[in-house]
């Protein structure tokens, strides 16, 4: 086991920082400016001013029920920089930011803002100290204008009238945010809404901006625009803390990088010299498996056929909104069909339509030759549809029920869960035990509640459950969302091995690299319609991103050179930190536990 954390925070010059990071550092790491996390000396961060740092977190520890916690975190953020906070899902980034924003109190450790030690008990305290947070999920009232949204809750600052509006215009011009205060929020796109959120925070006087995974909802082009805004903010002296786990985004925008793994800081890196692969390894704490070439397992046998699916719902004003617009698709045995699209373009509805959870206005669903169009959800599940839901807490688990009851969920009519009309708790328990062992669900037992497991282990349980009933079709909606990287590789491998055995998979994912890496075919969904398709072997994430905005239709094939470049980059270990290869080294990736 490599030493995870450097010894106590004496500001000694990092003579041999690498030995503190990992024992088995790749040979070329000698030149990288990875410094131990606690080197508080200004030299540790690039473009550092001589002034006191804007934010200084020292020894932050947060004990938390469950698996992920913050443990002795040290981070120094210099004023007027974009500081990226990196780490896998579940590494503890969000907890740390909630502590900085006053939403949670640390059990130990100190926070210093502009050199002054502070204690926050509510976000209000943090706002008063000039800290603002833009959440991943926007908190805007759709039916109000931009101006009203920004003023809401901040009426005392500049009033609610012309003065407020003038201030909004002034801020918008100053930071190049291009915001028109009189527009209705519901008319805005995702990127615009994000800028409104940023302006909202600036309006309240924030000089330190926390952005929680701001690019998760954006397509690549919008990401570039956001980064331009961030550079603008930085130029105006605003400090930006940017949470992400996407390597090349961070490399392109950040001035300094802190990496968190298993709840503790494992090092700082200089984005000018560090490579994506080194960063990924720092995040994962293990050498990355390389992507493997694989043979197609696609057969000619049609498993799922969806024809002319249409769902139209009237919205609040009674205007009919088409949610699914004449969707037709086929998935063959052994094929993974990936659906790309910006969230909210009908993916969730497509899944629910195939699962029988939403009534159809038109269209048919056929599984393995059997017409399921009018069938209830239970019948469809019995017919062989496995379902890994997008939101496992809402749709996949009974959080307060023990694991073995969760194993029954969704398959209550099938063996080993029941015999006739009666449950078979003994059978279900025994089979839960098997799933726990076979799918490497890390749990002390099957009587604990699902809520006490980490996200990755919950997901492994769900996958084990769905795979235990010999599904013909697996619907996997964001199967690795919120899952730690070790589990991620296992989940991918499980989907692939099932595919080899002839499973048809409908894969929905916001992670374009996951889509390109796993799918045999990709379709792009935009405003409820499948507008484009692509061969994952000949398309880049950028071109897919373009299609996701509705700008490209038909068959997309990227410039071969770009594809080759992207693949080379992927081979270098970009983006999806532990790419899509089967992981042989997962023993090193338990969730952090206190």
């Amino acid at each position, binding site marked *: 086991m490599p030493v995870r954390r450097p010894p106590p925070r004496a500001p000694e010059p990092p003579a041999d920082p690498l030995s503190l990071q990992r024992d088995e550092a790749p040979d070329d790491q000698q030149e990288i400016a990875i410094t131990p996390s606690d080197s508080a000396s200004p030299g540790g961060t690039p473009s550092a001013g001589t002034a006191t740092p804007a934010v200084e977190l020292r020894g932050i520890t947060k004990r938390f*029920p469950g698996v992920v916690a913050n443990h002795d975190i040290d981070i120094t953020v210099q004023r007027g920089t974009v500081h990226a906070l990196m780490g896998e899902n579940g590494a503890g980034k969000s907890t740390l930011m909630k502590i900085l924003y006053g939403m949670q109190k640390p059990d130990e450790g100190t926070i210093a803002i502009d050199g002054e030690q502070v204690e926050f008990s509510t976000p209000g305290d943090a706002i008063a100290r000039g800290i603002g947070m833009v959440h991943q999920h926007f908190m805007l009232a759709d039916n109000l204008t931009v101006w009203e949204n920004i003023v809401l809750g901040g009426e005392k600052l500049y009033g609610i009238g012309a003065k407020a509006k003038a201030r909004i215009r002034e801020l918008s011009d100053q930071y190049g945010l291009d915001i028109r205060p009189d527009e209705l929020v519901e008319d805005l796109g995702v990127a615009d809404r994000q800028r409104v959120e940023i302006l909202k925070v600036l309006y309240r006087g924030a000089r330190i901006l926390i952005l929680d995974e701001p690019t998760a909802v954006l397509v690549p082009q919008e990401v570039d625009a956001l980064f331009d805004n961030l550079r603008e903010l930085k130029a105006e002296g605003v400090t930006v803390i940017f949470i992400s786990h996407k390597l090349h985004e961070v490399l392109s925008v950040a001035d300094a990088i802190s990496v968190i793994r298993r709840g503790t800081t494992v090092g700082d890196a200089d984005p000018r010299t560090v490579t994506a692969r080194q960063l990924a390894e720092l995040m994962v704490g293990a050498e990355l498996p390389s992507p493997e070439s694989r043979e197609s397992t696609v057969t000619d046998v049609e498993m799922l056929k969806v024809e002319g699916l249409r769902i139209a719902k009237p919205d609040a004003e009674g205007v009919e909104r088409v949610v699914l617009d004449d969707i037709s698709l086929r998935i063959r045995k052994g094929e993974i069909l990936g659906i790309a699209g910006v969230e909210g373009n009908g993916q969730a509805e497509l899944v629910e339509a195939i699962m029988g959870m939403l009534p159809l206005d038109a269209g048919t669903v056929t599984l393995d030759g059997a017409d399921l169009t009018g069938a209830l*959800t*239970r019948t469809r599940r019995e017919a062989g549809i496995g379902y890994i839901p997008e939101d496992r807490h809402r749709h*996949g*688990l009974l959080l307060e029920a023990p694991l073995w009851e969760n194993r029954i969920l969704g398959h209550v009519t099938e063996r080993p869960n029941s015999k006739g009309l009666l449950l078979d708790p003994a059978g279900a*328990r*025994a089979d839960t035990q098997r799933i726990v062992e076979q799918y490497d669900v890390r749990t*002390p037992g099957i009587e604990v509640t699902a809520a*006490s497991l980490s996200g990755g282990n919950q997901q492994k349980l769900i996958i084990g459950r769905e795979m235990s009933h010999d599904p013909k079709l697996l619907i996997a909606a964001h199967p690795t969302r919120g899952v730690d990287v070790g589990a991620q590789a296992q989940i991918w491998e499980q989907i692939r091995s099932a595919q080899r055995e002839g499973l048809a998979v409908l894969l929905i994912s916001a992670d374009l690299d996951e889509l390109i890496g796993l799918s045999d075919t990709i379709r792009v969904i935009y405003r409820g319609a499948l507008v484009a398709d692509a061969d994952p072997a000949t398309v880049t994430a950028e071109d897919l991103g373009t299609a996701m905005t509705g700008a490209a239709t038909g068959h997309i094939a990227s410039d071969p050179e770009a594809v080759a470049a992207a693949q080379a980059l992927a081979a270098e270990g970009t983006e999806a930190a532990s790419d899509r290869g089967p992981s042989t080294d997962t023993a090193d990736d338990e969730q952090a536990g206190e």
Partner: protein
Amino acid sequence: MTSPNPPAAEAAKRPLSQRIDLERIGLALAAPVLAVLLSVIIAGTLLAVSGRDPFDAFTIMWNYGTASDGQVAVLNKATVYYLAAAAAAFGFRMNLFNIGIEGQYKLAMMFAAFVGTQIDLPAFLQIPLLLIVAMFVGGLWASIAGLLKVYRGVSEVISTIMLNAIATAVIGVLLVPGILAPKTSGTTNSIQTAKISESSHFFSFETQGGTLWGFIVIAVLVGVVFQFTLNRTRFGFDLRATGRSESAAKASGVNVKRMVITSIVVSGALAGLVGLPELMQNTPYFGQNVQTGLGFVGISVALLGRNTPIGIAFSALLFAFLDASGAQLPTRGDYPSEIIPVIQGTIVICVVVAYELVRRFGLKRQQQKVGAELAAQAAAAAQKEVAA
């Protein structure tokens, strides 16, 4: 399921699960015990403030509760409370708030009484007939709320409250001479049905403390069937799943609409039984002076008993004891019997808060335990790795 190791795994797991259960039981008991203690303290303080000796009052209650006539009275009351609580609990288990037990049992009781006056079969047919009539009427009345909820999105809380009022009005309309009441009841002020036939009387046990209603057998049976259905049948699993998370249940294939209607009808059918002990064992007719409020007592009892068949048995006994012994307070000393509703109310408020606290505490504790165990496992694995 066919893997070779389940028996071993099962055997190995058992002790662990039992340990967890013990702790869970301890946690579960802590809340109601604390709530009862707190309410007794509050009631005692109230008595002391009003210049009366609380210990004397509690002694009177205790002595009544331990005397055999008191015990019979408590058991008879508890039988009725148990049925009402079972009706409420069945809905609660699916997050349905059937506030309409009140109306359901009164209507059911009235129609059962009417059928009892009109039909005179041998007892082994007559009694099941009356039970079925009562359950049918109760279920039918409750189904209105279920249908409204499923097809019109009306909250069952609102609709069942309204249906209670409507039930009272319906009784007022139907319970008149010439319809459900006999025509020749000119001499009495209160309007009531005729007496039910002899064969409609339920059996009872004669004890030295008085008549113990045989309906207690029905109550026990309801409890057993309730427990079995909930924990051992597919239907029960679907019901619990829906109660825990409607969205997850829906995704798992539960037909939530049908589940809502089914469970509210079952709840109403159980509610239909509530009035029968009184009708078939005590006062053989249905009149305007029928006991009211049983539905609401049932809700309190179900809350205290945490909606489990065994829990509500204990809480029904407690409530019955408080009511029965509280009635003795004004006669055996200068104590206001109003102190009893104070105790009951405090218990319910405390226990609702306490259960929620215990639930959160238990969840958090388990998460911490799991985290700790996993960390220990990981550490052990790491050591092995180092050693290897």
